[in-house]
Structures are given as C-alpha cells and as structure tokens.
C-alpha cells in the first residue's frame, strides 16, 4: 500500500487532468525542441561527413585534355597515391520536350563495376548499366523529365539523336566536388555510362578527368595539395595538358558551407531553446505550485515538515518530468529524421542508418530531471516559508498587501469600468509571475521573429544577387559574331530593347611555382554595362580606360589569403599566362560559387583576339515582359529568328532562371529556417498557452465568486480576454525589440558560414505581424478556454475548487 503522502502527489496529478496535461506538454515541447535540434545536429554531421567519406571521394581531381589508361596505372603506383581512376567526361544535351532540351554531364568509366573512388549509391533499378544504357543521378533528375525505365533522347554534336534507356537511379554525393562551374547547385543533370558507349554517342574514347585518393592523411589538405602537385608534375613529364585541378579532404562534402551554417544555426537555436524551455518549465510549475499553497498550509498544520512537503512536490514534479521526457523522446527522433530526410534531397546526402544519439537523450534527460526541480524549488520554498496563516488565507504569495503603483496608475484612467480595473489589477498583481510569463513569451516570440528575419535577410540577398543577372535573356552562340551586327539583328525582334555583348573565358589561377591552380570563371563586361550591379565590398568596379584591371569575388580571399587591392594575380586564360591588377572585391554566392572575376570587355576581347565580336549576349526586353515565362517565350522567338539568319545558337536561358539556380542553395537554407521558425512558434505558443491557461485556472475560484455576485459569462470572458491579450501584446512589443539582436546573431552565423562575412541584416514586418496574429489568437484561446470551463462548473464546485 502506498503511503498517503505519495497518494496525495498522485491524486493531485490525477484530479485536474487538463492542468496536468498542460504542464506535461509544456515541459515536453521544450525537451522536444532541444532533442530535435541536438539529434539533427548529430545526424547531419554523421550523414554529411562520415556518409560522404564512405563514398571514398576523390581527394584530387585533375581535368586534362586527355590521357591514356596506362597513365592512370602509373599514377596509381605513386607512393602517396592510394587509388587512381580515369573518367571520360562529356557534355551533351538531352531532349526534355518537343523543342526543349537541357545539358547533361555524362561520365564514362572504363571499369564500371570495379569503381572504387566517388562511389555511387544505387537507389533504384540496377548498376552498372549495360552498353547503350544510362544511369541517372537523382539530384537533377527532374530537369531531364525522365524516370526509371523511361527512354531519354540524347542530341549528338552531329545533330543525330540517340535513345538510351534509364536503367538505374543513383545518388552521387560528389557532385560539385571539383569546384568547377559553381558546384552542386548549378550542376547539370548527371548520367553514367560504360566506356564502350562513348563511340556510339560520337564521343572520343578518351579519359579526361583523373580521380585519385591519397594513401594517408586524407584529412590534411596541405598534404593532399602537395600530392596533387606531384600528380601535375607527372602530367607535365608525360606532356599531357591539364585544364584544372582540385584538392579536398575526404570529409569535405561539396555542400559543406550549408552544413556549417545549418549546424551553426542549430547550436545557436539549441542554446536559446534550452533557455526558453527552462522558462516555460519554471513558469508552468510556479503557476501549478501557487495553486497548492493553501494545501501546503494545511499539511504544515497537521505536522508535515518542510522536507516532507518538499519531497511530495519533488515527486510530483518528477512524475510530470518523466511523462514529458517520454513524450519528447518518442517524438524528437522522428521529427529529426523527417528533417534529415528533407535535407538529404536538398543538399545531397544519403540517409544514414541512424541510431538514437546518447548525447541528445542525456541532454533531454538532464533538462527534464534538473530544470523542473530547480524551477519548482523556488515556489515550493516560497510556499513552505510563509506562515501557515498566510498560506491558508491565500495571501502569502500575492504580495498584495497594498495596491500596486500600476493599479493606482490604472485607476486614474477614465472610462475603465470597475471589473476591467479588477482584471488589469490581476495582471499586475503577481509581479514575479508576470515577469516569468513575459520573459517566456518574449523569448519565444523574439526567436520566431528573429529566424523569420534571417530568412528575409537571405531572400533579400538572393534578390540582390539577381542584380548580377539583370538581363532578361542570355544568349550564347556557337561561334563569335560582330556585336554591331548582332545588335541590329536582335533588335528586329519586337520586345528587344537593348543588347550587350559580353565575353567569358575559363581561366585558372597560376600558382607561385608556375603550376596550374584552381579554375576561375572570368567574365568580361562592357565598362558602361547597365546589366550588372555588383555588391562591392572594397575598391571599385571596372572603369572605361582600364586595361588589365580585375574585380574578384569573396572566394579569392580563401584561395589567395591576404590578397589586396593593387596586387597582381596571374591567370592562365585560354592556355596563355596573363597578369591582372586587382582593383576591387565583390560579394557573390559564397563558398558554393567558386572563383569568379570580372574584367572589362575590351581588354579581354583584345587578349583573345575577338575585338568587336562576341559569343555571349545579354538582352533586355520591354517593360512588362519580365516574368520567367515571358523571358522563355522571347528566348524561343529569338532562337527561331537567328536560325532564319543562319546564326547557330548554342544556348538560350531566361535571366530569371540563372538567378534561380544561384538561389537554389540559399533557398534550402531559407526553407530550413522557416521550419525552425515554425518550431519556435510551436514552442513559444505552447509556452503561452500553458502559462495563460494556468493563470486563468488559478483564478477559477475568483471567477466563481464573481459569478456568485452577478457577473455573467460575458463579463467574465471579457475580463480574462482583456488580461490575456494585454499580456500577449506587451510580450509582442518587447519580442519585436528583442528579435533585433537575436536575428542579427543568427544572420551572422549563417552568412559567415556561407559568405565568410556578415551580410546586411534586413528587418521585415512579416514575422512581426505573424507573431502578433499568433499571440493574439493564442492569448484568446489560452484565456477563454479555461474561463469557459470554469464557467461550466457550478458555483458550488468552483468555490470548493482549490
């Protein structure tokens, strides 16, 4: 048989199920958020680092004009090289509709089934494919409009079409690893075929990319760099032309910047959530224990010592905590897995076989066992410290022996009815409780608004990035044409307002020792261009009269640490070594963007002997033709028009679509942030609901008395409503203020991870108003629902209510 005192603890739990549920859920939601965040943190790191390393990714990728198979054997036999493989990399186009097509990068492997490096994960169908079959990567599968079992039509350089059956779908986690062309997000769809299929596709059976892993030190980038240097020497010794090289560690997933920013966010949010949940728990328990003060008095009268009373409530709290912990553990892993699943499709990793994270469970358990006990000890201490007389008369905790300043101040406001005054006084009577409630709400609201603002900040930055792609249509020709002639031809098409001829070249950094380094995309723009508005972070833009002036993006700071304005950089452009003077720095899409540089059109075209001619055109359309569909439509019209003039088009893209691909990576982040904002809203809302409901429940007796002296349900509803909304509004105003530092902090974490520098923090009203709406609705629900149920009790029941 249980001792009566434990009986009492259980009876308290059981007697007010609604209240117990509120307390348990309030604690659980805080634990849940902590669990979700810490578990996601652990799993994400596991999936992106260990999961990536498990694919045995290449540490060194060298792109060359071509090399024979026995050269790969020679590389493999070098002492520092663990494994080396040659790949034939070809770019073709695949038809996606009647007149539409999209580029596709196809890799052909000589020994497909014995592939060691950059292993693919088979998701569906079979691997390896037979000759004349193809396996596609899942990431950009949608762009090809193909599914497993479909036949895709590949356009060959000769204009002939080849049909290939899609026999497998794989995940290639190494997409973007070479750093060429801006990485994962702007990569084309990827296909994998046998070496023997190349000839059928009118491609030379020539290896042009070398993948190698190092024997040891695959986490030591410097070592890998030096091995890469040895390999480059080997190419040179065999008179093989190299185009670019890249070196990376075995855990450096190409999308690591996003991982880093998300992990950073998770740590920050986790920290804030621990605080938030501590406040929710403290608040909920102090509300709960306040209702018990009278009973504490009675128990002391009949001989209970302080220790005995405290142990009763500690057990009570323990039961609540354990129930909440159970709930939180049951759901946090599931939610974390769902989040991981979403992210796996966005930043390209395999879902790992996950296991519960001991650290996360421990953290939740510690918070569940410690915070509520600490939080509860304060009101218990208060409750056991006051004299029995105070406890029994229920005045002990009220610090209400004189009307507060606020009350006296309120009383001076004209037009406030007496009941309204009572209600407002109630709000301010329990100052400590009010402060606790407000802090909880403010923290929850501020995090929500802050996260929302980070999202807007990134959205805003993405719009800003669009200023690098102001043109409505981008046109690439198969060969250069006179800019003056092209402008005239293009302007014949209605809707075309202006045309600029740009130039672009693939370049490579030249290392101090004269070897070829990382790839650089070199863009040349007319000095009077109106189609680009760069975000300059230092120095200036290209000016008329500039010769070999160059403006670099933020990534050069990583490749050439310490580079400054006035320095000279050496680039290999079209195989020739050239020197450039740095005049400015601009900010672009961060670490996923690779090296990007701008120079003046005239200088580059002179260098490449193409003065007055260009392959690349930027076209501006008339007002009211700036949607993606309209841009695409005009693109099709232009292509037909040029065809009639006998000018061959290599590629036409709508301006907005370019922006879209650049934005895709950041978009993943903003979706992730939105999810976090919703989580914060859920946590904050639960805190709000719990606290306010308990506040009203606590006043059940008071409500009974008011009804007994003639207050109608409408009176009472109005009273609690005013109180609830007042608290909600006060917290909202303060949350708006608090969201500034929190939002700025989160924004910096994200932008430093991606851009290596803080981006301008943008404040948006959206989050502020969504939170206002949420707070209002929740305040109403949280105060009216318990008031309603209090009104449903008979007055006798209410007055008997403790």
């Amino acid at each position, binding site marked *: 048989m249980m001792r*009566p005192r434990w009986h009492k603890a259980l009876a308290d739990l059981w007697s007010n199920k609604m209240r117990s549920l509120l307390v348990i859920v309030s604690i659980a939601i805080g634990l849940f958020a902590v669990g979700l965040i810490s578990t996601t943190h652990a799993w994400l790191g596991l999936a992106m680092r260990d999961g990536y390393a498990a694919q045995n990714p290449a540490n060194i990728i060298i792109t060359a004009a071509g090399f024979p198979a026995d050269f790969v054997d020679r590389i493999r036999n070098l002492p520092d090289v663990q494994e080396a493989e040659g790949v034939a990399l070809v770019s073709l186009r695949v038809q996606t509709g009647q007149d539409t097509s999209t580029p596709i990068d196809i890799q052909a492997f000589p020994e497909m089934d014995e592939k060691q490096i950059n292993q693919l994960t088979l998701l569906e169908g079979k691997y390896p494919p037979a000759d004349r079959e193809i396996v596609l990567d899942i990431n950009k599968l949608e762009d090809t409009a193909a599914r497993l079992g479909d036949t895709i039509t590949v356009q060959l350089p000769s204009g002939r079409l080849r049909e290939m059956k899609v026999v497998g779908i794989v995940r290639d986690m190494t997409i973007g690893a070479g750093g060429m062309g801006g990485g994962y997000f702007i990569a084309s769809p990827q296909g994998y075929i046998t070496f023997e299929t190349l000839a059928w596709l009118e491609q030379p059976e020539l290896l042009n990319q070398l993948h190698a892993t190092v024997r040891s030190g695959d986490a030591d980038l410097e070592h890998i760099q030096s091995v890469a240097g040895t390999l480059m020497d080997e190419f040179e010794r065999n008179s093989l032309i190299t185009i670019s090289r890249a070196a990376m560690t075995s855990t450096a997933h190409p999308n690591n910047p996003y991982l880093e920013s998300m992990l950073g966010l998770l740590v920050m949010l986790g920290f804030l959530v621990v605080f938030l949940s501590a406040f929710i728990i403290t608040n909920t328990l102090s509300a709960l224990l306040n209702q018990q003060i009278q009973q504490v008095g009675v128990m002391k009268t009949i001989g209970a010592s302080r220790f005995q009373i405290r142990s009763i409530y500690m057990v009570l709290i323990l039961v609540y905590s354990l129930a909440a912990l159970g709930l939180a553990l049951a759901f946090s892993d599931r939610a974390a897995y769902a989040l991981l699943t979403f992210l796996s499709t966005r930043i390209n990793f395999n879902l790992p076989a996950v296991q519960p994270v001991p650290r996360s469970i421990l953290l939740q358990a510690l918070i569940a066992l410690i915070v509520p006990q600490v939080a509860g000890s304060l009101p218990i201490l208060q409750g056991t410290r006051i004299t029995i007389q105070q406890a029994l008369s229920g005045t002990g905790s009220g610090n209400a*022996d*004189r009307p507060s300043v606020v009350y006296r101040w309120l009383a001076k406001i004209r037009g406030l009815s007496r009941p309204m005054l009572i209600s407002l006084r109630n709000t301010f009577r329990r100052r400590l409780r009010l402060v606790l409630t407000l802090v909880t709400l403010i923290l929850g609201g501020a995090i929500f608004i802050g996260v929302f603002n980070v999202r807007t900040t990134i959205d805003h930055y993405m719009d800003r990035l669009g200023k690098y792609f102001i043109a409505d249509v981008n046109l690439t020709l198969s060969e250069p044409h006179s800019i003056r002639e092209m402008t005239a031809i293009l302007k014949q098409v209605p809707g075309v307002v202006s045309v600029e001829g740009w130039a672009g070249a693939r370049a490579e950094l030249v290392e101090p020792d004269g070897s070829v380094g990382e790839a650089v995309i070199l863009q040349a723009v007319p000095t009077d261009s109106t189609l680009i508005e760069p975000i300059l972070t230092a120095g200036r833009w290209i000016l008329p009269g500039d010769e070999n002036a160059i403006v670099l993006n933020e990534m050069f700071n990583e490749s050439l640490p310490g580079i400054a304005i006035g320095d000279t950089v050496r680039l290999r452009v079209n195989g020739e070594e050239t020197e450039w003077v740095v005049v400015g720095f601009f900010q672009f899409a961060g670490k996923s963007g690779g090296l990007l540089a701008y120079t003046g059109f005239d200088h580059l075209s002179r260098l490449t002997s193409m003065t007055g001619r260009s392959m690349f055109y930027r076209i501006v359309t008339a007002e009211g033709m700036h949607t993606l569909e309209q841009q695409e439509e005009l693109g099709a019209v232009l292509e037909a028009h040029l065809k009639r003039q006998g000018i061959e088009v290599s590629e036409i893209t709508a301006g907005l679509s370019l922006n879209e691909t650049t934005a895709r990576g950041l978009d993943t982040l903003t979706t992730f942030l939105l999810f976090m904002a919703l989580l914060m809203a859920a946590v904050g809302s639960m805190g709000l609901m719990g606290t306010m409901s308990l506040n009203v429940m606590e006043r059940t007796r008071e409500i009974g008395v008011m009804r007994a002296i003639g207050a109608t349900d409408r009176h009472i509803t109005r009273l609690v409503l005013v109180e609830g909304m007042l608290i909600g509004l006060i917290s909202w105003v303060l949350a708006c203020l608090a969201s500034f530092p929190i939002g700025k902090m989160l924004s910096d974490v994200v932008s430093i991870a991606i851009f290596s520098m803080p981006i301008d923090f943008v404040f948006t009203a959206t989050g502020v108003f969504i939170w206002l709406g949420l707070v209002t609705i929740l305040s109403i629900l949280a105060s009216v629902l318990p008031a309603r149920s209090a009104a449903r009790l008979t007055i006798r029941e209410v007055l008997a209510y403790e």
Partner: protein
Amino acid sequence: MHLAIMNSRFPPEISNHQPLIRLRQVVKVYRTAAGDFPALKGLDLDVEAGEFLAITGKSGAGKTTLVNMITGTDALTSGVVEVGGVNIHQLDENRRALWRGRHLGVIYQSFHLLPNLTLLDNILLPMDFCGLYRRRASRERAMDLLRQMEMADHAHKLPSQISGGQQQRVAIARALANDPPLIVADEPTGRLDSVTAEVIFRIFQQLVAQGKTLVMVTHDRTIAGRVSRMLTIQDGEVLNQPAA
C-alpha cells in the same frame, strides 16, 4: 534537548505543577501598509490540562490571532508561549511542524480537508507525516476514528462529496489522528447549523471527558455552563479572567 521533550509526551509530573498552556506578555502586531496594528497587547493566559476553554469576543477582537499564537501557525511579535513546557516559538519551522503534528490537533472553521484525497487518506496523512504509528495500525486507527465520528461509510469519498457538518467531523477525526493531548478549534461550528453544531459540541465534550484539553473559539455564549471556563477577548486583551 528539544528532541527529548518532543519524544516524551507531556510527563504528568510537569502538567501537575504547571499549566499545559502558558502565555506571558504575548504581543502580536500586524504590519500593514496603513501602519502597525497591535492585535494582541501583552496578553497573559494559563490553561490547565483537562480544561475545556471557550474563547469569545467581538469580531476583530483578536481571537483567531490568539489561537494562532497557541498553535504556532503564525509568528509571534514578542512574549512567551509555552505548551507542555515547550517554548514553541523558539522551535525551528520543521521541529514546530513535527511537534504540532504529535501534540496538537487543529480544527478550522472552513475544515481545510485536502480536496484530492479521500476522507480516509486525509486522516492517514498526519500519521504518515509524524510516524507515530505503523502502517497497518494507522489504517485501523483511521477507520476507528471515522467510526467514532460516524463517517466510516464515507471513508472513500472525496471531501467535496459530503456535507459541511460531515466535513467538520472528518476534520476532527484528522485532528485526533496522532492522539494529541491538546485540541485547538477556531469557530469549528461557525459554518454549521445549530443541530449539527450541537453534535460537534457533544463530540468535544466527550473528548474532554477522555482527558483531552480543548481550546475553542466560539460566538455561541449559550454554552457557557457546559465548558470549564469562558474567556472574553476585547481589543487584544483578556476582558475578565475569573479564578479557575
């Protein structure tokens, strides 16, 4: 020293020579925003073991305040309160609670039963806190007490399911749980009708007959002839104290 006193229950040789309750120069001042209010102004009082003392006086006279000083449920401003030779206001909070549980039964006007516990559990609770009885024995004792109060049939009901008079009888049973020698009741019949009040009063008379000491605040002056002494409080002072 205190422990020794608590563990021996009022040795007869002490109560023979000394009053059970001894108040000397008891002052209680309530501190309020409006200023200090002296509710008891240097009050002296002796109550012998076995007495049935009734305290009366106008509303606001200080009766409840006096009772609180005897039970130690409120803090004393100055003076001495000894019960069974123990200066109760010098005990620390925990010892006082334990002392109260073992030596004193308190009965309130508004019953103050714990709402979530059955009547039986309400009576078991003080025994649980003070640990004077073994578990099996305490259960039997609780049922005995309920039977004495004619409430045995309701043992498993909640307080809200019985009438006020019945609740007060359970509260008396709870006050008797640890078999304390002294019972203090503040207007125990104040909320009850006259018939029920009479029933409760008879129970008190029986308890005195069994050797308990009873201190009871009441507004009912008609019981004057049926108690051993009537004490009137006025403005925080004893109005008349005829020789016992």
